[in-house]
Each structure stands twice: as C-alpha cells, then as structure tokens.
C-alpha cells in the first residue's frame, strides 16, 4: 500500500489550521482511505467550498478545486459528468454544506451522482470566527447566538437519507482508524456517499462554550458518539444524549452519470 503521506503537497505545509483543530485528522483519514483503495492519483479530484475545512483541498496532491462558499457540489457534479472515470471527493464544512450549500446537497443526493462528500462538522462557522451554523446544537453559544442558539439544528445524516443518498456514515476525529474505513466504503459506493465527520474547533467553538482543550473535546466525542448497534439498544431518552456512528444507511439506486450515459447511447451520441 502506498504511503498516504505522498498524497500531500508537503511544500504547501504547514497548514493554516489552529493548534488542536480537528480538520487535519479528517484530511489525513481521507488520504489514508485513498491509499487503502489504491486510487489513481491522477484520476482523483478533491473539490471543496469555502471555510477552514475547505482549505484541505490545497494540501492534497491531486487535481484540487477550492470553489466558492457552498458551491462545491455543483462544481463536483460537472466534473463527474464531464469525465465519469474520475473519482470525485468533496470536502465541506457544516455551514458550507448545510446552510449556503443546503439546496445543492439535497439535489446531489437526490440524483445519486457518484460523489463522496465528507462533511467536516465542527458545529460552527470556524473561518469567520464562530457564528452559529445549522448544525450548532441548541443552547450552544456563538458570536451570533450570544445567549445560546435556540433554532433547531439539522441532523445531516437524516437529511441525506431523506434526499436519497445511497451511503451514509458518521465518524469522528477521535475514532480516526474506523473513519478511514467509513470514507473508503463511501468512495467504493457507486452513488452519492455522505460521511459526517465530527471534528473539534477549539478556537471558535470550544473556547466560547467552555468545552476545554482540544483533547477534552475529543474525549467528549468519544463518549457521545457510540457505534450504531450500541445506540440502537438505548432507550429513546438515552438516545437524546448520544449520536450513532458507523455505516448508518445504504441503499441501491441507479447512479446519475451512468444513467446519463444510457441517454447518450439512446440518442446515438456514443458514436459521435
């Protein structure tokens, strides 16, 4: 197996992330998943939006695309359709994916286009200094929710499921080894795959909410996020305090680019 470190643009490092930021762990898991699957480096594209998380694309040695805030998925869709042989992996943040990019998210899932989306969920707008996102839990503080949030957050995995994603998983920066497998399985799924990855943002989220150091935030994650089977054994009340991890959902549905190839054939364009 190829060393995952060769998938980084070492001349672009050090990265811009704060000490203790969880984004690096999630990025490393992606590189390891790519190494594990032995994907062709020249046929793999990383697409991201805007945010601290989305800066990951620049550090990875593939064709990489750092788009506009919320717009990674339309760009990724165009790349996949224009050249279906490419593996297209999308890195996005909770604001990028579920707020400004929410509409693109549900529609990309609905099409079941073969993209692997890894949401670096730090429950906050990190890059802009700690504003509330649609994934900020109720009562947590943010610069734009100084008295605590009261608007209900999305459960992004449930959104993905309802919208039609055919592979959905949740992992965390604490459980880094299983995260690699969850991402690898997502890449292997021929359809829209979604991996919510919980990561810590000590700077813009942890500090304001008195969650302690990055290590303390990781420890918290290790207690809150439990394997799906264990989660399923809990009572409804107990579930309120926990989140299930692992593969949460799979489905089988025709993939968009493959279906369009059939349209081209039907129209005679395969001979053009």
């Amino acid at each position, binding site marked *: 197996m190829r060393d995952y470190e060769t998938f980084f643009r070492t001349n672009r490092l050090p990265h811009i992330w704060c000490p203790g930021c969880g984004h690096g762990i999630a990025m490393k898991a992606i590189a390891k998943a790519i190494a594990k699957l032995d994907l062709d480096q020249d046929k793999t594209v990383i697409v991201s939006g805007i945010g601290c998380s989305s800066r990951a694309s620049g550090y990875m*040695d593939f064709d990489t695309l750092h788009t506009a805030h919320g717009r990674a998925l339309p760009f990724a869709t165009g790349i996949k359709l224009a050249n279906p042989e490419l593996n297209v992996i999308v890195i996005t943040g909770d604001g990028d994916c579920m707020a400004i990019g929410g509409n*693109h998210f549900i529609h990309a899932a609905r099409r079941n286009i073969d993209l692997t989306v890894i949401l670096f969920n730090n429950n906050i707008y990190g890059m802009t200094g700690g504003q509330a996102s649609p994934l900020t839990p109720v009562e947590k503080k943010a610069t734009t929710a100084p008295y605590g949030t009261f608007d209900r957050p999305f459960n992004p995995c449930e959104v993905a499921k309802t919208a039609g994603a055919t592979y959905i998983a949740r992992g965390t920066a604490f459980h880094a080894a299983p995260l690699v497998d969850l991402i690898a399985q997502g890449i292997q799924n021929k359809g829209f795959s979604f991996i919510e990855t919980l990561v810590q943002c000590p700077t813009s989220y942890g500090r304001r909410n008195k969650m302690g150091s990055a290590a303390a935030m990781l420890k918290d994650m290790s207690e809150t996020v439990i394997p799906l089977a264990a989660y399923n054994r809990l009572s409804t009340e107990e579930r309120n305090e926990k989140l299930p991890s692992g593969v949460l959902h799979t489905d089988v549905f025709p993939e968009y680019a493959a279906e369009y190839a059939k349209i081209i054939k039907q129209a005679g364009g395969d001979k053009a």
Partner: protein
Amino acid sequence: MSEARLMQGNEACAEGAVAAGVRFFGGYPITPSTEIAEYMAVNLPKVGGNFIQMEDEIAGIGVILGASLAGKKALTATSGPGFSLKQELIGYAAIAEIPAVIVNVQRMGPSTGQPTSPAQADIMQARWGTHGDHPMIALSPWTVRESFDVAVKAVNYSERFRTPVIILLDEVVGHLRERVELPSAHEIEIYPRRMPNTTKAQGYKAYTPMEDLVPNPANFGTGYRIHCTGLVHDETGFPSGSPKVTEQTIHRLHEKIMRVQDEITHYDEFFMDDAEIAVVAFGGTARTAYAAVEAARHAGQKVGMVRMMTIWPFAENVMRNLAKRVKGILVPEMNYGQYVYEVERAAAAQARVVSLPKYDAEVFTPDEIKQAIEKLAAEVAK
C-alpha cells in the same frame, strides 16, 4: 452553407454553441431563455454531450465551471433573475480563468418585473454584476443568423482568453423567427482548448501566463494535478497574499483582453459616409433603429447608424472617433439609459450625445426613433 431554415434566435444561439464545440449545458428554466435549455436537452446527447437541469441558476453556472475544468466546453443560459444569481460565480470564472459562456436573454426587471417583456437593461450588470475588478466580454446579436455567429465567437473567446463570456440576447432577438442559412461545420473556425506546453518535470506551473498573457491550466484528470481557487493566486495556482502578485493578477486579467480590444470589437456602420447624426444601437433595438434611419434618410436627413455587436469591452476608440465625425449621437436602448453613459464619456463633448430610453415594456417603433433623429438634427443644426 446549409439549406435555409426557419429558426428562432435562441435556437440559433444554442446551435452555434454546439457547432463551436460546446458539449455541456447546465441551467435552470426561465422565460425567455428556456428554448436554449430545451434545445440542449434534445441535441447534446446526440453528440455525446451532457445536459443537466440544476436546482437553481447558481448550480447552473457551478456545474458548467466544473465541466469546463474537466475539459468540456460549457454553456449556461438564463434571464434576468437567474442572471443575478449567477454573478458570484461569473467572478469565480474570471479569477480562476475558467472558460465558460453565459447567455442572458434579457427581460424586463428589476426582480420579476415584466417576465415576458423585452428589455436591454442588464448592460451594466453584464459589465459590473460580479464584485471586484474584472474584465468582461459581452456580445449582443441583432439577427437570428448572428445569434449563431455570436455563440461561436463567445465560445471561441472564452477558450482563447480563458474567461467568462456573456451573450446578451434580448427577448426580441431570442424569440424572433427568421429564415437563416447556417454555415456548415467546415466553415466554422474553432478555438481549441488550450493545453499545457510543458511537462511537470519541466517545471510546469498551471497559471504561468503565456505570451498572450493567458495561462494554460491543464484539464483535470490529465496528470498535472493542478490547484484551482477563487483566491488570488500566483503562477503555481496556490493562494498568495502578496500585494505585488495581487496587483499583477488583476492587471493581467484585464490586459489579456484589452491588448486585443480592437480585434474583438465587432460593429457595423450604415449610411455613415456623409452622416451628421449617428444612431448607436444594438440587439433588438438596432433592428428598429435601422428602419428609422432608412426612413429618415428618405426624408433627407444626413443620418447613419453604428450597430454594436461587442458591448464589452466598451468600444472606446470607435466612439471617440465617431464623436469627431458627427455632430450628434442618438442612443436608443430598451432601458432607463445605460450604454449611453459610456458613449457620452468617450465622446468627451466632441458631439452632442442624446439618450433615447425605453422602459415601458414595449419595443421601440421606428417612428419614435425617427422623431428623435429629427429633433437631434434640428438641435445640432442651430
């Protein structure tokens, strides 16, 4: 030439784009541009291309920029409200230097306005709609046949300069049906996708400008492993915070187009030899203006017409010279007065420049323009 066909402007525009090599369309339906999407849905798969209806107009431009980066010539089409939504990513295409064509079949605004009524009120938006300094190429056809030609030019310019190019159709030309003879494939000159001219081993950098100031970033999937971003970047394609790089980048983006401005300024002159009054018009309005100028000529007025196809970059030299040749310039346009400000600036008081705006959701009648010609002729004769 192929045989004559009865066609709509929108259809001719779509056909021209495909003839120029467009193989990817993404968009969202909106009157009066929808025929372009419908044409693409039918015809692109026939030539191995892709059509995709996206969830909104932002996605419509995002998807074509992705496709373009992956090597396909790509186009999106929209009208007023959708054109507003596309603005951020038009700027993205400008700074990341991604070839793409955006068709705006103008309709009356602002907002939902008069959805099925003609207008030419997006002239300034086409130039300045996206934030920040950026160059812009915008072309506006006045006939069905020219809608085809403009589409070919737009695709070619987008590839040659690696920049977004806007086609400013209006409802008049977009929905007009005319008999046209279109050129056959071998008569059309196509600008191919630019390719890297060095290898990675030779030190290839994705954003090194070539002699014509345009870089050759490789298509995704071809082994170059480039980085593309909307942040200011240096020749490597990676972000740079340097004031010098920033200044050079903004300057180069403009210069790569402005250095050949005369070459890409397309216009026609009619009855201009002895003209003392010039009507400057474009798009659907130019059709009416032509009839008005002809009628005024018959009535003995020394009036001519300059019909602009290239709207942006603004035809600075053409207008400056025009102001030296005539006493008065009349600018009819289906808006509250937009293009006229540029004409006035270039004329620099060498000729009297008069605006003839129209914003009642109707097209000009030849008589309205003829009367304005007569009024201006009387004024400058004093």
